């Protein structure tokens, strides 16, 4: 049975386009690494940004993620989806950073660089100053609510919401059971509902 499951996992991995690219990287195809970077750069950085809530730190961590992917190319084995492996590395680095407290999570100072928050386009002219302030206040509330989640709950929510990952894949990333992931998510979303439901 274990061999059957292992074979099925291998077949599933074989169907994963990213996995095929990574195998080519292992074989020395540098162009394939470029393709993987182009495809996954933004999702990884965005995930890390929402985890640590600091763009500079997020990009630094993302650099480390792709460096580790590159370093592991010669020993890479397609035992899981490429994105599972990728986000496992990213989550591991993010959790380490948060645990070590190497970044300032809550950087909402009055002199914060507003260019970090891209302005949404509106059809009927520019938003007023008041509208911008209201929007920033709401975004700040969302950021604080997510930052207030325990680290693993935060990671689970971000992968579930923004990467559209299924419970099983999140479980593999976090190296826990699917029921544990559901528990993480249910608790996290309950916390977020309590803090953000009034924003409806």
């Amino acid at each position: 049975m274990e061999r059957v499951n292992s074979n099925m996992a291998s077949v599933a991995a074989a169907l994963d386009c990213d996995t095929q690219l990574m195998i080519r990287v292992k074989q020395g195809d540098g162009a394939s690494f470029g393709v993987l970077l182009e495809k996954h750069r933004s999702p990884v950085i965005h995930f890390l940004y929402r985890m640590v809530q600091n763009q500079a730190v997020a990009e630094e961590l993302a650099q480390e993620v792709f460096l580790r992917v590159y370093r592991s190319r010669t020993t890479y084995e397609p035992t899981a989806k490429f994105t599972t492996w990728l986000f496992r590395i990213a989550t591991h680095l993010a959790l380490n950073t948060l645990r070590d407290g190497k970044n300032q999570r809550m950087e909402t100072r009055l002199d914060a660089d507003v260019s970090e928050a891209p302005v949404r386009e509106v059809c009927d002219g520019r938003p007023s100053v008041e509208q911008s302030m209201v929007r920033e206040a709401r975004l700040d509330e969302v950021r604080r609510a997510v930052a207030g989640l325990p680290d693993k709950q935060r990671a689970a929510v971000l992968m579930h919401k923004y990467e559209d990952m299924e419970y099983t894949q999140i479980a593999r990333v976090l190296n826990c059971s699917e029921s544990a992931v559901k528990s993480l998510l249910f608790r996290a979303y309950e916390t977020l509902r309590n803090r953000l439901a009034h924003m409806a």
Partner: protein
Amino acid sequence: MMCPIEIGEQSELLAYSGRKLELSRAVALERHLESCSACREFVEGQRAVWQALDAWQTPPVAGDFDGRLFRRMEKEPAVWWNRWLGSMLLRPGLPLAAAACLVVAVGLILERPGASPEPQLPAPQVQNLQPEQVENAFDDMKMLSDFTRAARTDAGEL
């Protein structure tokens, strides 16, 4: 259907709130919502959460991200093909002349004048050569062939 909250299974409520629940299950859940205020409250609250999270945009990625990454990769051991990776991403095509120059260089390395004509004594030639040079040159030839093939494919796709 059984109340998802009562049985502690909120997956369907989450999926329904995000409009990702299978149609038949969604229809059944909607019938349940008509009579269950707890589930209705859950769905309304969760939809507010989805909307709030949707509004959380991220800053743009720095333009020099790839460049910084490639510079770090160049410092990694066994980095012969990394120098070509940067140029590959900056310029979609690789000039065939570069490949030809490399072939000529390999030929010059292998065909040194004054080499011993006696095959029984290959040692001096071997000693004069850098084994890594030859091995890496062959690796580069293969790599350039791959890059050229990829560049042609990209050009064709464009």
